[in-house]
């Protein structure tokens, strides 16, 4: 009797194993919560009748890189991961991500040409594609139209050049009523680099050429904003979300931030606000802006590359839902965003879409965190008056050169 039981359970087990073999389970790690795209799309894909089950794991923003590196080093990496775009090259350059170039070329759903150049550049390493952009964002200039009119400025012509921006900030600045001219973030974190790099880029610099005259001028301009009290000294330690919070409460007349602010601003800001493109060094100069958000990638040691790519294809096929359902911007130019019915938001969206065309990736470089740190240090040293903008940026250039030479 005992033998019989063990035999029958062995049979049952092997039958179970056969049934399992048809059903592939892939793991997806992302930082998206319930009301954000990845979690929902992963569930939908899992529930489809395609023999693929998705095991979704939510990871915190701060842990994405360390968690996945640790998992990769110990052979427990997920099949698919959503990674912040400046950190994409860190993985791609080390062969941790699967080369998707051929799969994308054959895909009927994903068309590389449809993506904005910035996001596409961030998933590219040595001319090969190592991922697919998940969503995108950028920064532009928010301004309080009521404050403009009150100060005798034309709300229909926001500042277009750097000089005009400073001049406008001076006019709008009103210490008696605790109103700063402008709010932005120069925090010593990725946010500081995110905000500063576009200024360097539109004046002919870049992450690899950070000590150009234009970048020095930009940093001096930031210093002017702080020294003259046109922006709060807390700009040095406050992130974009908190800085823009002061704009929403009417304590700053302009703010530089991204589309992630829109929903909160619609609710909180009790005044007419609008969005303009980031001002440029002088009229006719080239535009630039920061590029944020995450990319999809497949780990190189996955057992199910085809199924994983199929999942990413499904995610990409739902890009048209990103904005209406989740408030995120697709990284593609071939998707029409339907109006939301909230006038200031719709108007802002058009500006952000235009700004996106000028958005540039940070890097890509496998040592991005170190490059970024050098830029943050330069910003902070100059703004706290410990070094001139020129010396600070020269110092940053020296350490960036050392990283690039490695």
């Amino acid at each position, binding site marked *: 009797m005992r033998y019989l039981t063990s035999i029958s359970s062995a049979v049952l087990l092997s039958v179970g194993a056969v049934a399992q073999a048809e059903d592939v389970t892939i793991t997806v790690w992302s930082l998206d919560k319930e009301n954000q795209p990845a979690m929902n799309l992963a569930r939908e894909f899992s529930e489809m009748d395609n023999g693929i089950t998705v095991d979704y794991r939510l990871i915190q923003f701060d842990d994405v890189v*360390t968690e996945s590196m*640790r998992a*990769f080093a110990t052979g427990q990496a997920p099949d698919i991961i959503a990674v912040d775009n400046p950190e994409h090259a860190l993985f791609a350059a080390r062969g*941790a991500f699967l080369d998707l170039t051929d799969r994308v070329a054959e895909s009927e759903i994903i068309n590389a040409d449809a993506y904005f150049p910035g996001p596409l550049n961030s998933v590219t390493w040595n001319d090969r594609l190592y991922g697919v952009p998940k969503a995108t964002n950028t920064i532009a200039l928010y301004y309080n139209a009521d404050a403009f009119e009150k100060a005798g400025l034309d709300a229909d012509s926001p500042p277009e050049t750097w000089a005009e921006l400073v001049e406008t900030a001076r006019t709008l600045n009103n210490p008696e009523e605790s109103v700063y001219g402008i709010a932005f973030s120069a925090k010593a974190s990725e946010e500081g680099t995110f905000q500063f790099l576009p200024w360097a880029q539109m004046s002919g610099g870049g992450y690899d050429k950070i000590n150009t005259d234009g970048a020095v001028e930009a940093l001096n301009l930031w210093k002017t904003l702080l020294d003259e009290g046109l922006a*709060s000294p807390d700009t040095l330690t406050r992130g974009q979300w908190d800085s823009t919070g*002061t704009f929403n409460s009417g304590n700053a007349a302009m703010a530089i931030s991204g589309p992630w602010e829109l929903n909160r601003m619609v609710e909180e800001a009790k005044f007419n606000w609008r969005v303009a493109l980031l001002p440029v060094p002088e009229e006719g100069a080239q535009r630039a802006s920061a590029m944020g958000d995450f990319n999809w990638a497949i780990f190189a040691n996955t057992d199910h590359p085809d199924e994983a790519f199929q999942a990413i294809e499904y995610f990409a096929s739902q890009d048209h839902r990103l904005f209406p359902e989740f408030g995120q911007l697709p990284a593609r130019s071939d998707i029409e965003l339907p109006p939301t019915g909230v006038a200031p938001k719709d108007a802002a969206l058009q500006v952000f879409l235009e700004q996106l065309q000028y958005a540039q990736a940070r890097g890509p470089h496998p040592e991005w965190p170190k490059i970024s740190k050098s830029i943050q240090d330069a910003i*902070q040293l100059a703004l706290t008056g410990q070094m001139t903008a020129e010396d600070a940026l020269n110092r940053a250039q020296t350490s960036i050169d050392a990283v690039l030479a490695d």
Partner: protein
Amino acid sequence: MRRIKSSIVDGVGFDLLLVGIPLVFLILFSGLPLLYNVLMSFQEVDLFSLGDVFRPFVGLDNYRALLAQPEFWPIMWNTVIFVTCSIGGQFLLGFALAVFFNTGFRGSTFIRGLFLVSWVMPGLVVGATWNWILAGDFGVLNYILDSLGLISKNIFWRSDIDYSLWAVVITNIWLGTAFNMILLSVGLAGIPKDLYEAASLDGATAFQQFWTITVPMMRSTTGAVICLGLIFTLQQFDLFAAITSGGPANSSNVAQYWAWELSFRQYDFARGAAISTIMIAFVMIASVFYVRSTRHEVRG
């Protein structure tokens, strides 16, 4: 067999067992990570070799690279300022409060208990609360100082390089005072009352009693409190993360926060480990003093 058993139930074996369990626990969860950290500080580590134990050995290269960084000495100096001022403030305030509550007025034990609330709160919560108090434009502290006529312009506690470290020091003093007070209260309670009675019969003033009885009798407690304070202060990480993130321009950066920044922000685990190792050395020295100052507490 039986002898072993009886020894475990009642004898030397029982003692060894009692000592053994925490010892194994300590070695597993403190000793090994500590050694691993020291080992890592002599290796070349990157994100992809995180899972290995044996990595390329680079000798003192990580330490040399650290010393060559321009922020090394300023950060070490900040650490010294942070530790001394935090401990000094916590100890003096804690001692004053302990003596005050030791007078035994009505409700003193109850109020003393309430003071412990600050110590019970998680560092991040304390940090977030003090963030509002210290805020530049609309902070309560600036409002109070302004109302008292002490300042004419708002102090940007978190963003001014001259104040940022002090913002964390003030918060840390607030956080640690209650703990110092409780330990010192215990010490005070242990001083025999007849000493004071004899002294007052001899006509000693309260001030003389304090200097000639309280202070000398509190010596070992003081040593222990300060050593513990040193260890806790060197561990203080949450407040930096919550209040200044070490900024602006590293003006409030200290060794423990820098170690984390290097490891988990720039993914330079080897240098992060090197700083931790330097700190381990300091804490070891403090521990020696701590053990010595508490040694004669063991009686019987």
